[in-house]
Every structure is written in structure tokens, then in C-alpha cells.
């Protein structure tokens, strides 16, 4: 017998279940317990760049909206800097780059306000197009799903993006592109997530 490798195994994932709100968004579950709920303000008041809203629904394989989803966003600021000690550069005071939202219990709509991220340096010196990383959990989702939101007004950068380029089927790349529109003077990007079936969103093993 060779020596044993002494690595531990990662704790296995389990579904967040239908009542994820109790732990991560108790106000939505119907009670007030914490002084501050986490994740409602992604960019903070001082962040530079364009103020945007990203919104959508998550639909299942039958095309029905899923109404017990929790999504978390992780993004760089407008200069392409993540609020993390290992990423070179500074972020604005109060810029966190992280947020969480839930889908509406009746409509399944979700949305968050933030700033549009800048391009981020990727591997091998290749620039990544502006994007927001999303992590999606829900009842019936056994391991959280990772995807990315890209922006429709960044067609050139998207075409050169090394992660987009990994997606062999060009037709599927469009599932990651949020459509830009203006509503009441605000910039709104629409990003619907399809868990299964026609137009299934690209999910990543990161």
C-alpha cells in the first residue's frame, strides 16, 4: 500500500430547500430578527460607474417561474477590481460587490441595483468582458448553480471573452447576455435564467 494522502473531502452539498429565506433573508420569511440583513446593497453610495438594475425570472423545465430561489451576485467595480485582498487595486469605500436577492413569492421576479462592472483581467493576460457572477440555489437544486451575466451593449468585448469562448455552441452563449433597456430613466438589464429545456442557461463548474 502506498502512503495515504491526507486531504479531507469537501462537505457534500444539500438543497437550500423552500425556506432558505429564514436563514439568509428572514424579513422575506415574515419576521424581523437581525439588526442588519446582509447583501441588500452591492455597490454602496460612493461607487463610480453607471448605475444599473439587473432583473429577471428563473424558470424551470416546464417554463414556469421558480418562486423560491435565492441568488447571490459577485462582481468587480467599474474599474474591474474585486473587493478582495488578493485582487490588486482599490474599491470605493462601501463597495462590496456582493449581494443576495430572492424571487418574488407570487411572480418569481428578482432584481438588484448595482453599478455596471468593468472588464476584469482573466487568465493568461486575456481580458474578460464585464460580467457579474451569479450563484443560484433553490428547493430542488442539489448543488448551487454558477453562471455569469454579460451585457448586450458589450458585444465586442463579449466576442473576445475567454470564458464565452469556452462555450462550444455559439447559440448557447446568448443565454449569458442580459438585454439592455431604459425604463423611467433607469438602465435595466433583463437576465432570465432557464434551468432546463429550450434556451437552457449555461452553467459553469468553477
Amino acid at each position, binding site marked *: 500500500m502506498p502512503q495515504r494522502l*491526507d*486531504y*479531507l*473531502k*469537501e*462537505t*457534500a*452539498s*444539500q*438543497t437550500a*430547500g423552500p*425556506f432558505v429565506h*429564514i*436563514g*439568509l433573508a428572514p424579513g422575506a*420569511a*415574515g*419576521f424581523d*430578527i*437581525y439588526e*442588519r440583513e*446582509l447583501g441588500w446593497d452591492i455597490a454602496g453610495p460612493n461607487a463610480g460607474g453607471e448605475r444599473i438594475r439587473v432583473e429577471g425570472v428563473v424558470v*424551470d*423545465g416546464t417554463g414556469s417561474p421558480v418562486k423560491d430561489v435565492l441568488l*447571490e451576485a*459577485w462582481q*468587480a467595480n467599474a474599474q474591474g477590481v*474585486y473587493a*478582495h485582498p*488578493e*485582487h490588486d487595486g482599490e474599491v470605493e469605500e462601501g463597495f462590496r460587490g*456582493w449581494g443576495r436577492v430572492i424571487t418574488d413569492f407570487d411572480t418569481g421576479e428578482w432584481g438588484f441595483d448595482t453599478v455596471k462592472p468593468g472588464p*476584469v*483581467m*482573466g*487568465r*493568461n*493576460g486575456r481580458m*474578460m468582458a464585464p460580467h457579474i*457572477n451569479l*450563484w443560484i*440555489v*433553490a428547493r*430542488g*437544486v*442539489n*448543488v*448551487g*448553480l454558477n453562471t455569469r451575466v454579460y451585457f448586450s451593449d458589450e458585444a465586442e468585448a463579449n466576442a473576445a471573452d475567454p470564458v464565452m469562448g*469556452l*462555450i462550444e455552441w455559439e447559440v448557447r452563449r446568448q443565454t449569458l447576455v442580459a438585454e439592455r433597456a431604459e425604463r423611467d430613466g433607469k438602465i435595466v438589464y433583463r437576465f432570465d435564467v432557464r*434551468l*432546463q*429545456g429550450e434556451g*437552457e442557461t*449555461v*452553467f*459553469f*463548474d*468553477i
Partner: protein
Amino acid sequence: MRKPAEYYQRDRAWHPPALAREYKTSVARSPSYALISLEQSASEITGPVFGHNDIDPGDNDLLTNYAQAGESPIGERIILHGRVLDENARPVPNTLVEIWQANAGGRYRHKKDMYLAPVDPNFGGCGRTLSDEDGYYFFRTVKPGAYPWRNWVNNWRPAHIHISVFGSSFSQRLITQMYFEGDPLIAKCPIVQTIPDPAAIERLIAPLDLNATIPLDTIAYKFDIVLRGRRSTLFENRPEGN
């Protein structure tokens, strides 16, 4: 300064598959296409950082964080404690751990939970804390009850506590559930059984920890959480920007 390095790839055969037919809700909510595997960039290696300004010191005590003054929730008083480690067996310090659970009767404080068992006026059912420098965390709560759920007609969830952990990078993000040693419902639960490897299920079961109990007061269960580990960067010639 050490170059940021990737995290070990997730062992997808150890985790539950997206589609697990006996857990019916997964059938229409599981992607059919294969996941696209990414070599990690800054987007995956970084992740949110939390500090003591984000939470309050009493947030980890579910016996008091929603109870009226001088009152306590009904149920078996327990300590849930352990360490957050990575696959290299190193502690993961200062990471946010959030939990939620049903009360002792198996009822959640949630406007969508319609189970017969009553809500407990002194129990909210959620808590949060930061692991310390050694990765150690602890909560005080009541042992949750089993409850029925609609899958087959007669499915009962084993007593469990939901746990959400961040780690240091977005790629370590994890939600899981911990179960209690000796619960006969564990083997019969379609959600537990989405996990193919019995060894992975065993690691979700917290043993009774008599050494950590407070005599005449509170009984303890120990639950270590393991997040993805990280490569070292020895002997690698890495271009800028990795």
C-alpha cells in the same frame, strides 16, 4: 506576496447530481446540459469578505435571539459546534456561517410553512456567526423536530439544520444540511439519498459530543465543515493576471 492560486476542482461524483429522480422537485429544476468547466480567474478566486460589523454578538444564540425577555424556546437545548476547514485540513478563519432550522415541533417560522405543528413564539430559527482564527464556530439552539413533506405521500425529513458557508472565494460557496447521529429517518430521506456515496452522507451526520456538553444544561453535537482546498503555486511559471 503569494500569487493567488486555484481551488481544487469540485468532486462532482461526491456531491449529489442535479437530477435525482427520487427527489421529485429536482426533475424539472436540473440542467440537462453538462456544466462548462472553467479554469479559475479572479472572478472565481475572490469572494465577499465579512467582518464583525456585519453581525451582532448574540446572532449565534438561537435560544435568545428571538425569545421574549426571560423566556426560552421549547425543546432540547443543544450546542452545535465545530470547525470550518479546507481540503488541506487548514482552518478557514473569519468566514460567515449562517444556519436555519425548524423548531422542536418541526415547524418553520416562514409564511409559506403550513405544517400543523405550532410556531414557537420564542424561536426564530436562524443564526449566524464568523469562524474564529482557528476556524472554530458555535451556535446554541434547540434540536429541530422531524416534519412531513410532499414528495411521496409519506416522506419525513430527518431532524436537520441548514448551513450556509462562504469561505474565502466565491468558488467555495456552499449550502448543506447537518443531521443528528442515530436518526432512523436519515436512511429513508430522498434528499439525503441524493448523495450517491454513503461516506459523503456520513460526513453530514453530527455525532453527539458529550465532552462539549454543559452538564445539567445543554447537550452538544459536533459538526466540522470542509470547504474546497487550494493549490500551492510551487514551481509554476504563471503569467500576470492569473
